[in-house]
């Protein structure tokens, strides 16, 4: 995900959505914080670029999985905060399950030589 989002690659797009949704389980965050969280939690393996992040955030907002409101950040700047909606939580558990199944399947294939 260090490259521009591959629109035809549903897998990549869906994965980013999943990560964003998971990140927001704890509470509402602005876009920079979300990117930072993913970077740190993945130990710098996954670095999200703005060109991918914000289209994803706005897409999720338009689909009703995230709700957004404007607030003031710690350093007194105007920032847009995103949080999960109930629909978003449902989508999160569905996507997580899907991803786990997928990962398990890939692991099994790789596991057999």
């Amino acid at each position, binding site marked *: 995900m260090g490259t521009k989002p591959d629109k035809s690659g549903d897998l990549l797009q869906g994965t980013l959505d999943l990560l964003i949704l998971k990140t927001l389980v704890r509470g509402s965050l*602005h*876009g*920079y914080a979300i*990117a930072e969280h993913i970077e740190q939690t993945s130990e710098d393996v996954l670095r999200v*670029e*703005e*060109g991918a992040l*914000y*289209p994803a955030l*706005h*897409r999720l*907002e*338009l*689909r*009703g999985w995230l709700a957004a409101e*404007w607030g003031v*950040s710690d*350093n007194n*700047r*105007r*920032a*847009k905060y995103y949080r999960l909606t109930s629909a978003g939580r449902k989508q999160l558990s569905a996507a997580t399950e899907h991803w786990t199944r997928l990962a398990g399947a890939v692991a099994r294939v790789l596991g057999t030589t």
Partner: protein
Amino acid sequence: MTWTNFWLRAKTLFRRSQLDRDLKDEMAFHRAMREASNREAGMTPPDAGREAARYFGNATLVREELRRQWTFTSAETWLQDLRYALRTLCKSPAIALVVVLSLALGIGANTAIFSVMNAAMLRMLPVPEPERLMLFSWTARGWPARVMDDLEGASRITNGVGWSYSLPYDAFRYIRAHSQSFDNVVGFAANNDEMNIGMNGRAESAVVQAVSGNFFDGMRVGPILGRSISDRDDAEDAPPVAMVSYQFWRSRMAADPAVSGKTITINGQPVTVVGVLPPEFYGVEPGSPPAVYVTLASFIDAMKRVGDFDVKSPKVWWLGVVGRMKPQVNGAQAQAELNVLFDQAIGIGSKELPRGEDLPKIGMTPLSHGLDSLRRRYSTSLLLLMGMVGLVLLIACANVAGLLLARATARQREIAVRLSLGAARWRIVRQLLTESILLALLGGAAGLLVARWTAAGLMLIFAGARHPVDLPVSVDATVLLFTAAVSLLCGILFGLAPALRATRVNVYPTLKQNADGSRGTRRFLSGRILVSGQVALCLLLVVCAGLLLGTLRRLQNVQLGFDDHRLVSFMVQPGLNGLKGEPLISYYAELQRRLGSIPGVHSVGLSQLGPIGSGSSSTDVVLPGYTEPGKRADFYRHIVDGNYFQALRIPVLLGRAVGERDTESTPLVAAVNQRAVREYFHGDNPIGHTIDLGKTGTTHALATIVGVVGDVKYNQIREDAPPTMYLSYLQRSQSATFMTFLVRAEGNDGNISAAIQREALATNKDVPVINLRTEESVVHQVLLLERLFAVLGTSFSALALLLACVGLYGTIGYIVARRTNEIGIRMALGAGRGAILGMILSETAVIVGAGILVGLPLAWFASLLLKAQLFEMSPHDPATIMLAVAAIVGVTLIAGFLPARRASRVDPMAALRYE
């Protein structure tokens, strides 16, 4: 797109600036955070800022992407295109005006013809659920003499099979009483004639329609004033009642609100008006709205009184019958039931009337659009007119396309810039198309105005027809839809090619040199092709117009056989008031005498039917000694008085005319015309021979021929005079219920007319004068369609020529402008003015020549379509074609000459410097 998605986007629809601000802020915030974290990580402030900027990437691109998610892209770009198109049009108002004007004329003419077509052919009857109405009609091979003596109303014969919708009275009652498939079965008299109406002491004439008591019930039409005619009113002893149409109530009864209960006289009999019908109801026949409706019972009564025929006889077929199908019944079921009921009613299949091929078979015709007499009469003409205006519109579109093509090359720079900035080609094409469609829609809107006036004018002309057409033509939803569709089509038609061409631009050279970047415009081939096409279509129109004009001229010069100048005609129907026998004859004699005493009047003749345009009456007779056994001779009839031939200046060639001395007590006589002599008597002198007119009662009516008169056209002008016989009205007084007076007079038309009205009033105040007009105007009216075609054809071709010339002028001018440099060089190298003139003129010649070459075969085929309208002219009349070509060449050469002359007058030095 889910509801949430739509709703969120819709919320930002009117807060675009806020959306932009939000997006900008969000991106800026992210960058600021990164810059801050960079500084925390130890970078210097300027470095931190640069790194953040670099890492962020192209913020604008991201913002655009986000914005695209939040806007209704397609809809809003259309709006954007529209606004831009409007701005562009406002920048060149002259061109916009010219385009809108020519489109308004073209689209307006098309809409006008279409709205007339719509009113005459496409509109449904203005009643609820018109598609459930079925007209009962029948077909038969030949005349079904076993069941029919007399047939009233419209009938047609195609390939030996006759069709009519008139049924006997008893059949109507039987079907009505026994049918299960219809909610209502209603009847109406198939002939609705003018009758004498007496109101407020005035004698007038109006069309009266007899209907059954349940007619308005079945039509589901209610009165706007008073009450409807009901079954109770349609009984034998019920007091006679009537309903009036809205138009009659407005124009002749001064919209009297207290009209119900008022008494008027119809043919001398008092009738009570009980209600007024709504304005949009015009009966069952579009174009012929009755003014007054009476019951069948009073109609039958009146017929008995006048003594014309016994309308209750099972062999007299005179009643139109309509059924409103029940919703749950389908056509097949209704037809099956109808077959059975009809046969039972007539008695087909019984012992006395075994089945046979000659007996009528009942059928159903949908009545959703009313009776189709108007459609039959005018549909071909309207379609032809539609074709002509369609051509004019095509020419106008080609013109506009050429104009836009020329203008597009002037916008090369703008388009090149936009292309280089990354605009998709189709996006620019779409925007150019929006401009064209906007122009077209503006033209269409203006065209609606043009259409209203044109249609009104057309209907005025049709109102003066022999069967006057009274048809309300309005701009309704169908017409609007048509106009919108035509405008849209035009916009795409003339906009697409220029739009595609304009975007086929070599971006680099255009931007660099400010020069014309696209190849081929030097020759401007597309522009020339357009003009050639216009010339071809023009040739088509001019040839057609020429043929129609020629036809009209020939028809106007036809010898009628009588002198129609200084002749006034009018009709009276005293028989309808009950006058018959002696009093009837003396009425005619008295009126004739009084008219003769008017100063200026030379002679007064009588005939039941006027010579032209009054309908026809024919019969078949036996000519003893001349017709073969079993065969009969067809004769057309005129019932006249002794002064008729003198008043009309018809020559009496042999023997004498029928006249005063041929009365009831003298032997029956007749005069025949030359055609009859040629056709039936093989040139022998027919005087003294007899005509066997057939049985009336028990006696054979045998008329002795006493004279031969000149041929006179009968009722119409195109056909030759048919074999005609003239009988004395004194010997045929039982059928002389109405007569036409023909007055030959010198002097002021107005004075004569006033005098005639006076004398008629004095003779009998209850008998109105009907259709008082000059015989010339009658002939004029008969040629209505031909005149219409000639006038419209000429106007359309003139318009088309004008448009083509404008197009040609513009195109040649454009070509000259592009070749100015070249012209300068040629002149500098020694070419004289004449050579330049010739060079440019040859451009015109090539364009026009190509157009004519293409147009000739088109005109060849198109004029074949006109064949039915022409009279004594071949559709490929060489004189017309040559004149058309000459006219077009002449006019277009002038149009092309002007820019050519300008080119030859160019100052070479200025031309050389021209880029």
